[in-house]
């Protein structure tokens, strides 16, 4: 009985904390228009899966009408934080901010699960350890992997099933990008521009070719590059799991590495990292020291997605295509973070439409979420697959040779979905295609 009272008291405390964002919750007029764009609702048609339902449940908790915190937490986790609802919301409700806040409060209340705790607090802050995992798994993969889709050259890793399910991957890298290159500090060339490069975990460890393409482009255009040693994760997995403590630790580690060198822009091939650094670091800047705040602000205004950098800053020229023979058909998938959070969607298309040797075809629902959502795909694998299937169907409907996107997390999901369906479509980052077809 005593325990129950104690629990009730802490629920009341949690409810009080939620009341702090009551203004934002009340802003939802319950019109339900989020149903039209929510990828999760699109699959399940359940009200608890759409933002209106989640916001009402949060309101109910704030006013202690709802008592089942576990039930609420389970439902809050069924969200990709893709921002589609926020973009479409007539009342301009900031759903991402609401859900990040709620997840943080609930994680503080319930505590973090053990696996996440290990990953967020002990693995993510140690890049050398992660590179070591890459090297080891890259070496021994031949023993464990199984061919999945011959055309696409993908593999399945039965030994990893408890963690990643039956996902299909490209062969694992034997050396991470950062292990290969170490600290980078090249001087500024003809462009007169110096960038700080933030590859992001996936282009550093799984799609090293994307980071290498970026380096090739910087070199070609005379852009000086600074990449510190020991960069850590941008913190988005921690934040979406509500683990604010470890998020803050990662941000501080990264800030420490960027304070030493001047740069004109901070560039990344990962849309998720860009949106996280630009928006989430900035959102919580008041929790940092004065010096750190200044750096967060500077980065907020200077960080840029790499396709945006190529088109809007470098203003790159394109090789004129001589022949229409052997054109490869390419379609483009809008990453949610890139289009909905950062508003970048014309730039990657401009690149793809102008590159020689490529024929561009717009797919239906190009900006509908692919279902990846970073860690969502691990914790909500079945849902992610169902959402991904719609994306896959849209991709193959335009019969492309290549599907391009500008987000490595989306690349993983697209590759898996296409491979699982036995398709033969190459998955590439826009900068890879640009690097292959740059004008002389």
């Amino acid at each position: 009985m005593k325990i129950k009272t104690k629990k009730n008291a802490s629920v009341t405390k949690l409810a009080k904390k939620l009341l702090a964002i009551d203004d934002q919750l009340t802003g939802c007029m319950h019109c339900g228009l989020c149903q039209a764009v929510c990828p999760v609702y699109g699959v399940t048609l359940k009200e608890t899966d759409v933002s209106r339902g989640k916001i009402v449940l949060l309101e109910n908790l704030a006013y202690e009408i709802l008592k089942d915190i576990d039930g609420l937490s389970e439902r809050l986790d069924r969200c990709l934080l893709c921002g589609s609802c926020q973009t479409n919301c007539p009342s301009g409700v900031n759903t991402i901010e609401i859900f990040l806040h709620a997840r943080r409060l609930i994680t503080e209340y319930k505590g973090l699960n053990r696996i996440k705790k290990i990953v967020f607090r002990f693995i993510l802050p140690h890049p050398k350890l992660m590179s070591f995992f890459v090297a080891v798994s890259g070496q021994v993969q031949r023993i464990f992997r199984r061919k999945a889709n011959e055309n696409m050259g993908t593999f399945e890793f039965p030994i990893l099933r408890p963690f990643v399910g039956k996902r299909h991957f490209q062969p694992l890298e034997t050396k991470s990008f950062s292990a290969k290159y170490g600290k980078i500090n090249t001087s500024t060339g003809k462009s007169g521009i110096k960038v700080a490069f933030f590859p992001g975990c996936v282009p550093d460890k799984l799609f090293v070719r994307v980071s290498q393409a970026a380096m090739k482009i910087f070199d070609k255009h005379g852009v000086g590059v600074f990449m510190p040693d020991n960069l850590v994760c941008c913190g988005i997995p921690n934040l979406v799991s509500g683990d604010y403590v470890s998020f803050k630790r990662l941000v501080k580690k990264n800030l420490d590495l960027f304070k030493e060198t001047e740069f004109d822009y901070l560039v990344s091939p990962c849309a998720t990292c860009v949106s996280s650094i630009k928006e989430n670091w900035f959102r919580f800047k008041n929790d940092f020291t004065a010096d750190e705040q200044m750096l967060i602000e500077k980065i907020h205004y200077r960080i840029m997605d790499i396709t945006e950098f190529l088109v809007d800053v470098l203003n790159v020229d394109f090789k004129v295509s001589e022949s229409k023979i052997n054109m490869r058909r390419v379609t483009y998938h809008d990453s949610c973070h890139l289009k909905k959070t950062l508003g970048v969607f014309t730039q990657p298309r401009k690149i793809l439409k102008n590159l020689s040797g490529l024929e561009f075809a717009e797919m239906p629902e190009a900006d509908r979420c692919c279902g990846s959502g970073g860690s969502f795909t691990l914790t909500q694998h079945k849902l992610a697959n169902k959402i991904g299937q719609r994306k896959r169907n849209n991709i193959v409907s335009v019969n492309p040779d290549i599907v391009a996107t500008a987000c490595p997390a989306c690349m993983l999901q697209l590759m898996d979905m296409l491979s699982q369906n036995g398709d033969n479509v190459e998955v590439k980052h826009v900068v890879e295609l640009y690097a292959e077809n740059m004008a002389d």
Partner: protein
Amino acid sequence: MNLNLIKEFIAIVGKELVFVSEADRQAYSYDAAVLTPQIPALVVMPENQEQLGKTVRLAYENGLPITVRGAGSNLSGAVIPSSADSVVILTNRLNRIIEINKEDLYAVVEPGVVTSVFAETVSSHGLFYPPDPGSQTVSTLGGNVALNAGGLRGLKYGVTKDYLMGMEFFDCNGELVKTGSHTVKCVTGYNLGGMMLGSEGTLGIFSQLILKLVPPPKASKAMMAVYDDIAKASETVAAIIAAHIIPCTLEILDKKCIKYVEIHTKAGLPVEAAAILLIEVDGSHVQAVEEDANEVMTLCTKCGATDIRPAKDADEKNKLWEARRNALPALARARPTTVLEDATVPRSKVPNMVAEINRIALKHNLEIGTFGHAGDGNLHPTILCDRRNKEEFRRVEDAIDEIFDAALNLKGTLSGEHGIGIAKAKWMEKETNRATINFSKKLRLALDPKYLFNAGKKIL
């Protein structure tokens, strides 16, 4: 709820589609109306018509109040459960378009099909389904029929009732009733479809609808006319109709609404204006549409428009409509709570009604922006407030009552397209009379003797 009964529902639709947990049930306690929520006892999501029929029968046999729900986007509380022992039946998975017939111009659909998904599918077959309620991207066709939904195209193309050719529905015993047909003409039996239209879930539960399709217009032309006096805008509307031109859309934004849209979009709207009209004419012949548009512009000038901005191309037309599309978003962002009404008056009374609304706003010290369908007199006075402020919300409720009074005094109606639901049920007798209410009650009791179908809505 009794565990054995829950098991019986599970036996019909499966475990995954019966929602009993606190969180799931709470997510079906509200709709888009600003009203007190009611958490139901159980939520069931049938996947096919057989399951739907069995669910209805089981609930009815056991005396459970039944509320059928689609998107839950209505503005009258029509799908807020009646009581704590209610079962909510969801139509969302009954979302198949069964047939689109291009020769005979009809479609057969299940009630959970989303309106705009249907309209787009019809359009991809080269045909047109005109009803376009504001919530069309999420609203379901079943919901549209149950509330006789309207939209921007009402003036020329009519509303949902003009497109319902027939239907199948379950009665309270879970028996399937059929009415109407796939033909233009049909006089077989009572016009039960007409009775079910706008019945708000009080008479039976739809399982299939037959909807009329029409050929799409081939040309259209849009313009904006600016007025320094709202009466002149209204005269223009009357003049256009008197000239026998029926625009496909004829929308009005009042001064406050223009102000909020401009703050929100910075699109360069004339903020000093008293009202703007947005007019679009369409038809099958480019030349004829062009002539109609020219005549409309002449009439606008004649009636005293201070500025007329025709859209030269599709891009400009899109920008023009941007102002109307942004009316609700702009108003909704101004304050936490947005109460959207739809009192409707004969179109000649639009200036009187707007004057009344502004008087009521002043009296109760409230911000009310008005936009709406000037062509059919269907206005949307939108009250900006904060429902957490009890004192202010009491003033809002008083203002709503007075708005209804004003509409009825002008020979108007309580609701043009949002429905009666819970919100306006107590006003029904005032618009009609005691005999009408008694007749409706008798009808209702004959079809629903236990009074379980959406109790507390529509007719009290």
